[in-house]
């Protein structure tokens, strides 16, 4: 029983590291701002969730695990929010517009 717990925890932590690696590779490889936002937010949020869940299962202490899971939940809520604010600001300032799917055509969708 205990071994299964530990194995799951290690698996989740490894997934967290993998997602973090994906984030960094995405930051380096993607061509423009909006795709980099994809790379950062989606996979780094996932990484944070996996890491906190893995640590919480690894420690298996009621108070501490709930605190760590709270950190994961807060990151899960607030990371997309911050990225939303940044993306909105950069859209308003018309920075590095993507070449296809130009924002002028889809003006109503962003507001």
């Amino acid at each position, binding site marked *: 029983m205990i071994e299964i717990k530990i194995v799951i925890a290690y698996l989740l932590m490894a997934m967290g590291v993998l997602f973090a690696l994906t984030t960094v590779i995405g930051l380096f490889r993607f061509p423009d701002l909006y795709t980099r936002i994809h790379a950062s937010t989606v996979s780094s949020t996932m990484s944070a969730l996996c890491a906190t869940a893995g640590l919480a299962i690894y420690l298996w202490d009621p108070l501490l695990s709930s605190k760590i899971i709270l950190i994961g939940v*807060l990151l899960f*809520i*607030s990371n997309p*929010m911050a990225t*939303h*604010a940044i993306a*909105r600001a950069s859209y308003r300032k018309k920075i590095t517009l993507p070449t296809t799917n130009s924002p002028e055509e889809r003006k109503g969708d962003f507001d």
Partner: protein
Amino acid sequence: MKIFLLLVLFSGIGFLLIDNLRFLSNSGFSLGAATHYYVTQGFEQTGALNLVSSILYDFRAFDSLGESTVIFAAVSGIVSLLSRKTLPVSSHGLSIIVKRIFGILTPFLFVSGIYLILHGHLSPGGGFQGGVILGTISIVFCIVYGSSFDYTRYSPQSKTILEVSGALLFLAMGIIGIFLEGFFLANWFSSPERLGKLLTPGSIFGINLGVGIKIGAGLSIIFYSIIQKRIEGK
């Protein structure tokens, strides 16, 4: 020319420092008798589980009084230098998503600030850090909900009253120390069996509370007096 002189000065100073730090690390850092006393006797003598807090607010509480007075002086100075402008009140803020999510997040921030202040003698943290978090909440209100949100609810006068009352609470703790223990800023923690409880009847608790209130209100005042701007055309 001036830059060259400054470079010479700073490189000389850096050389001196490196040279002497090498001497220090060779001969070993000397920990005086005071450090030994703090580590061995600090818990019983002050009633604070957090040694840093006990040093800051009990052994060397006078330093903390000076430092919080620095913040007080800075607030007064900034207000007196920048106060000619009117605060343009605006309620634009950021988008609705951010507003709703900060509606969820702000209680967490508030609770953690209060927690840091009240548990200053038990866990890392203390009045200063908790106070900064309380001040940050006020900044968040301005950023997310627009400047009118905070300005209409808590006027600068009420913030000033909060700040002054925090400072007076600090001094009152010191003066109560005179009557109970005979010395200014003495810790009137008396019963060792209450060591580790939240409501320790000591001055560290009160000083943490005072510093927290004072720093939070003071930083909020500083922020709101810096962002003031005269509206164009008026």
